[in-house]
């Protein structure tokens, strides 16, 4: 039993719903009690969808449990097939139905429908949402293509046509998937590569049947599509790309990888520096202040990994924390963190993430909506880079993360909160000027410009309260405090801590202006 106040991922059947709702002409009968229907609002409110998910919940009740719940399930399946006339039927159960073991998938298969039936077994007490999405997509593809002949087909060169790829992995409630698909389609078009099928987003079962017509699969979101891509490679000899085109470098690598797999010559334009404005913006003098900015990264595996690379290589930040809530992706995130000299944080506990943020005192947090709230509490700027989805993550405007335009969006999304960070500092510096005396409202709320300091003051108070022997703690003189207040707020906490450590080591009882400079020199040395 695990105490959970908030969770990054829903149960696995939510992942299945994401696949079902992303697709067309498919219906999902979910053996589940009535409360589970809340899941509809994820799609109709967060994603702002104008149609209901194609899901029929059996909504069984306690009084049904004494009787024949199997008959109840069959009744709902029949009604759903009659009403919605799907081309393929998904049948599964949520956590409660898993306990009563009606095996709705087998029931459905015994009902004599002439459509493919995909029976989903998603262990609700050990797996989570992304795993459920991945498994569902895999089962759909496998069910629909298992009888497809895998005899080798002609290459695009032999058929004298343009190469074709499938884009696999985008779903509803995935981070900016809608726009990423458009961006990658556009990008591939520029290199003479056609898109054969996009799935699950927008695909019908008939589209899934067309997957084998492609030369290569592009695995856009490994969380959802990797197991499917592996199966398609093993069984239908369709290779797939491993690089996710998030960031300028990764987009270049992706294009190179794809060209190599397709046996195409890599065009020079792939390496040009003006494909994305990120490269120049990052090189421009204005961005000098970004150098070495301490950034803490947490999210799903794909986006956290990409963020670490972009932050480190393309923006010149210093990554001080890297982690993911996705256990399935831990294998990839651990070495990436190690390469940055860090230990990956793999956890589903947002409080643990918040503690890690406090501990590393970053100047920017790249995280989920939960880290946005944690960062707000701590007075640290934050940009959201990953699911779980929030209504803010479905912007009205075109806002991809992938490809060249995605890199532009990322530059803006990450740097703007920092520009504001600089602005906060300036406001702090000029706070005694008459323009600001009326309490300039910070966009970070009341903590703006003071957050980091507050945390450390909190820590300090605790120390002095619970320790009877405070004599070893150096005391800040008025001059010392005044000098400290001139230091930008986002490093002030760190400076305070370092100076106190230094003072203790050096045996100083008091911290004055000079102690600050002594400590500064000591730590730079």
């Amino acid at each position, binding site marked *: 039993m695990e105490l959970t106040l908030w969770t990054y991922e829903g149960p696995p059947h939510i992942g299945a719903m994401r696949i079902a709702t992303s697709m067309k002409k498919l219906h999902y009968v979910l053996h589940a*009690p009535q*409360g589970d229907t809340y*899941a509809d609002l994820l799609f109709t*409110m967060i994603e702002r*969808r104008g149609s209901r998910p194609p899901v029929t*919940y059996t909504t069984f009740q306690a009084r049904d*449990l004494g009787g024949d719940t199997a008959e109840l399930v069959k009744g709902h399946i029949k009604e759903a097939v009659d009403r919605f006339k799907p081309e393929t039927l998904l049948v599964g159960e949520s956590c*409660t139905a898993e306990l009563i073991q009606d095996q709705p998938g087998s029931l459905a298969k015994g009902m004599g429908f002439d459509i493919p039936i995909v029976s989903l077994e998603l262990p609700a007490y050990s797996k989570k949402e992304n795993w459920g999405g991945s498994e569902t997509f895999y089962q759909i593809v496998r069910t629909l293509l298992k009888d497809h002949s895998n005899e080798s087909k002609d290459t695009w060169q032999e058929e004298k046509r343009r190469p074709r790829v499938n884009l696999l992995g985008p779903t509803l409630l995935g981070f900016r998937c809608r726009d990423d698909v458009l961006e990658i389609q556009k990008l591939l078009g520029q290199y003479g590569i056609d898109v054969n099928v996009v799935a699950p987003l927008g695909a019908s079962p008939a589209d899934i049947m067309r997957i084998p017509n492609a030369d290569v699969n592009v695995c856009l979101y490994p969380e959802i599509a990797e197991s499917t891509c592996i199966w398609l490679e093993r069984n239908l000899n369709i290779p797939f790309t491993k690089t996710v085109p998030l960031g300028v470098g990764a987009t270049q690598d992706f294009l190179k990888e794809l060209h190599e797999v397709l046996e195409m010559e890599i065009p020079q334009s792939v390496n040009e520096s003006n494909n994305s404005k990120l490269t120049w913006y990052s090189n421009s003098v204005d961005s000098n202040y970004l150098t070495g900015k301490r950034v803490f990264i947490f999210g799903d595996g794909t986006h956290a990994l990409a963020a670490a690379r972009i932050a480190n290589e393309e923006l010149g930040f210093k990554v001080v924390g890297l982690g993911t809530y996705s256990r399935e992706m831990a294998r990839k995130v651990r070495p990436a963190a190690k390469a940055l000299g860090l230990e990956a944080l793999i956890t589903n506990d947002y409080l643990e993430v918040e503690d890690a943020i406090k501990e590393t005192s970053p100047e920017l947090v790249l995280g989920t909506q939960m880290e946005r709230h944690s960062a707000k509490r701590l007075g640290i700027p934050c940009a959201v880079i990953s699911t779980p989805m929030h209504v803010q993550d479905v912007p009205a405007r075109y806002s991809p993360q992938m490809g060249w335009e995605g890199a532009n969006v990322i530059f803006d999304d990450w740097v703007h909160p920092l520009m504001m960070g600089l602005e906060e500092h300036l406001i702090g510096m000029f706070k005694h000027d008459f323009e600001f005396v009326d309490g300039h409202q910070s966009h970070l709320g009341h903590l703006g410009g003071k957050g980091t300091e507050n945390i450390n003051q909190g820590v300090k108070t605790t120390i002095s309260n619970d320790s009877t022997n405070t004599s070893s703690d150096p005391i800040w003189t008025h001059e010392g405090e005044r000098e400290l207040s001139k230091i930008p707020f986002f490093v002030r906490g760190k400076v305070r801590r370092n100076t106190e450590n230094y003072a203790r080591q050096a045996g100083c009882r008091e911290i004055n202006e000079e102690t600050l400079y002594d400590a500064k020199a000591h730590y730079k040395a």
Partner: protein
Amino acid sequence: MSGATLLKESGPKEVFCGLTSIVWLHRRMPDAFFLVVGSRTCAHLIQSAAGVMIFAEPRFGTAILEERDLAGLADAHDELNRVVKNLLARRPEIKTLFLVGSCPSEVIKIDLSRVAENLNIELKGQVTVLNYSGSGIETTFTQGEDGALKALIPLMPKSDQKKLLLVGTLANAVEDRLISIFNRLGIDKVESFPPRQSTELPSIGPETKVLLTQPYLTDTARELKNKGAEIIDAPFPLGVTGSTLWIQAAANSFGIDKSKVDSILNPLISRAKEALAPHVEKLSGKKLFLLPESQLEIPLARFLSNECGMEIVEIGTPYLNRDLMKAEIDLLPPDCRIVEGQHVEKQLDRVRDSSPDLVVCGMGLANPLEAEGISTKWSIEMVFSPIHGIDQASDLAELFSRPLRRHDILNPTKTLTSN
């Protein structure tokens, strides 16, 4: 009863389960913590329904069952014990802990009452541990509050004092206002249940007269009656009429002179009617369809038809307690169709066929209906907004007139028609 047609329907439903009540109960009693014993689905449900509330220090959480908890019940009880102790160590300010049963905990028959009993012995009054079920196989949405209140009743002290007890969660401001009106009428001792602090439970006895503020408290009302309290028959305090009749019923029961009641209420009534007028203008003649969710549907329909002139197509309710709802049903216009239970597909077919101007529905259904050009109002707003009492009648009406007003602003050429 009037000529209302009472129908029952079954099929796939689209309603929240009782766990959702935690979203307002934890705000009502800030010294209580609600620990759902359930699955990741339960945790996800509450965080999805609670939205931003989760980002504050939440006073609710889920003990998520894992594979090994399903293997042996004894172990599950031990595990829960461990989780509770960890929680209490982290949150020493908690005075009352509700263990809330869920679908999976009910199905595998975790005995939460036994766990609560053992914990109460161990914790020696430091924290009171209670249990109730918010499971979706037994309860819908607001019934969770019914369960939580019922669990508190055995702790209520006995008293022979004559008093009025308002039962059901109200917004604090509304509660203060209603109490001050009762005080003015001469009812001095007015208490509320649930209280604002879980440890300050009102006492109860044969001289307690209970006035229900919410229509979904079937079990609570029965238990209070078993404790000797008298349940005052009245419609619910929504709208001018409902609130007036509700206050009058209490006044009658306390033997207060009718002329005194009138002299105090009449100015409030005429003021409220004035405030209501612009909304009546907007709502009058418009067709309303209420889908089942909160059990507030019947009182809402009664207010919107009788006082705002709306035409009721259908009133869906997840559960119909004919005794508690009798006064309400009597006030409904003749031939009103009340449907208990749901077949969501068939009901949505009826919605489309009747092309209503406004549909009251759950959060999952609202945007799909909006996308079809049908204005909607979330039913969950009714349990969060201060809507009770004479003074609030225009605010209540505003909740319904706003979507129509908005529709007109955004579609100036195409006004809503009622055909």
